[in-house]
């Protein structure tokens, strides 16, 4: 569809007056981009408006919440934030954010380290069973978690890990997120091996080569891995729902569900205020590093 304006223009230097065909093409191109801009802007606004409304509504009073579609609060108040932060439990949202962080940080580190090591093994070495193991990476990518979830739960129950963060950390630290393994392998395959071979000739062993040569080259991919894992873990609901039972260990996602159950009937602004806070870390990380998201997703193809 972008064909028309991509036609080579022999008169670009402007020495000859434009022909009738050219004028027509230019006009068409101008109309086309106007239509595109209008369409994209309208759809974009419709899409983003619920988020803008959410932020505005979190500063509204409960009375005003459902009275107007405007996002702008008439009597702005931060009462929703103050009351919402306290929650109906003995803990504040501060505890829940710390819990989320305490789930996320080890999980992200474990993912990055294990994926790097495993991807290095797959992308740079030949070993018996490699083909089969690589097929399992792809198969795991497509395997619905729903079919492994119950025995996983029973396994973690039997080794006494329920109501701890271990079921959330350990599988990721053993390269359990096939998607990331796959993404790093793809990235690594595209990197020429010259520098690694030079390092090996100079006497570095495979592990030193990995740490000093491969890891720096992999950095962009690893940043993408960390960012996606951060985001997904922040948003993860089902994992904590199954494994975490005491409120003091709740991450933000479970705490939000708890506040819906406890206060939705009368305190909408509290819930919306806490929703804004729950979204804030992901939004900040995304806008600080969007390049890595778009690159990561275009390179590997991402769920979501």
């Amino acid at each position, binding site marked *: 569809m972008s064909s028309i304006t*991509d036609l080579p223009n022999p008169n670009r230097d402007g020495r000859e007056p434009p022909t009738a065909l050219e004028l027509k093409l230019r006009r068409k191109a101008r109309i086309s981009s106007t239509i595109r801009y209008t369409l994209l802007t309208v759809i974009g606004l419709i899409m983003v408006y*619920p988020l803008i409304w959410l932020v505005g509504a979190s500063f509204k009073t409960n009375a005003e919440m459902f009275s*107007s579609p405007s996002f702008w609060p008439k009597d702005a108040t931060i009462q929703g934030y103050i009351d919402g932060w306290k929650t109906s439990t003995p803990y504040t949202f501060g505890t829940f954010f710390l819990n989320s962080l305490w789930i996320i940080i080890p999980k992200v580190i474990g993912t990055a380290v294990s994926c790097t090591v495993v991807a290095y093994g797959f992308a740079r070495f030949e070993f018996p069973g490699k083909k089969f193991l690589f097929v399992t990476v792809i198969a795991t990518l497509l395997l619905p978690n729903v079919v492994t979830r119950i*025995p996983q739960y029973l396994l973690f129950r039997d080794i006494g890990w329920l109501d701890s963060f271990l079921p959330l950390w350990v599988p990721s630290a053993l390269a359990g997120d096939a998607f990331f393994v796959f993404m790093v392998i793809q990235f690594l395959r595209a990197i020429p091996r010259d520098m690694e071979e030079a390092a090996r000739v100079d006497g570095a062993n*495979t592990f030193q080569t990995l740490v000093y040569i491969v890891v720096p080259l992999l950095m962009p991919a690893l940043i993408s891995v960390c960012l996606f894992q951060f985001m997904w873990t922040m*948003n993860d609901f089902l994992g904590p729902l199954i494994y975490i039972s005491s409120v003091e260990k709740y991450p933000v996602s479970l705490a939000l569900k708890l506040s819906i159950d406890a206060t939705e009937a009368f305190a909408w602004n509290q819930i919306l205020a806490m929703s804004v806070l729950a979204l804030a870390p992901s939004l900040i990380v995304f806008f600080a590093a969007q390049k890595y998201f778009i690159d990561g997703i275009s390179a590997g193809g991402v769920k979501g």
Partner: protein
Amino acid sequence: MGGESKYVGLWYVAPYVIGLVLFIAFPFLASFYLSFTDYDLLSSPEWVGTKNYEKLFTRDRTFDKSLKVTLIYVFTTVPLKLAFALFIAVVLNYRLKAINLFRTAYYVPSILGGSIAIAVLWRYIFADTGLVNMAITALGGEPINWFGDPENALFTITLLRCWQFGSAMVIFLAALQSVDKSLYEAAAIDGAGPWRIFRSITLPLITPVIFFNLIMQTVQAFQEFNGPYIITEGGPLKSTYLLPLYIYDEAFKSFDMGYASAIAWVLFAIIMVLTLIAFWSSKKWVYYAGDKRS
């Protein structure tokens, strides 16, 4: 990099192998076994043969309903989402100055969409006097009973997932941008119009990513949990009671691990069969040009 033992690579992939055995392979087989047992967590699993499956297919009205809404959900959400993602990607694939701005704006919902906070937001904007109904009223329409009417509730979840079309769109856009421009020029010189060019050149060239998106989105849609759990709580009248929700309730509320495993295996079998059909049919419609990435 020769020289070292042929087992060096195995050491590097060892963490993956351990994880694969412990958290994927063993649970996969165990859940198949469990689906033929009665297991309430208190006593050990008791072998009951195909009883769970018989009950599922002959006597379980809830399963029939749940399976039906799951299929409706998947077969409306995936095509809608992909069509919308492709449409926006095509509109964006033009020499627009603001392409990155738009790409970012459209991608934000994908980043946030999985969050419980967004599901919470959905409850508010589709409430009886919520944002959506206020907009409909302002445009002169009748407000819609989104959550009270079994006809509409499922659609709010479909809309939520379509709203997150961004990641599929980014993949489409990357594919569109990699299409060789000279093909367009040649077609335009031969007198082909924009629609003809799209159908005969663009579309065939991006079938590999259409296929990829189709598989990933379908597998994902079959496992939708957060939406119905938070937004509609499976209701009204089980009209949003998707299979993952049913499995969760059977396993972690009724503690009927055997029955829940049987439902999970039926869900898995459906996903498997559809994926195999997709792979098999892909030979007929997915076009791989030379060494183009799939």
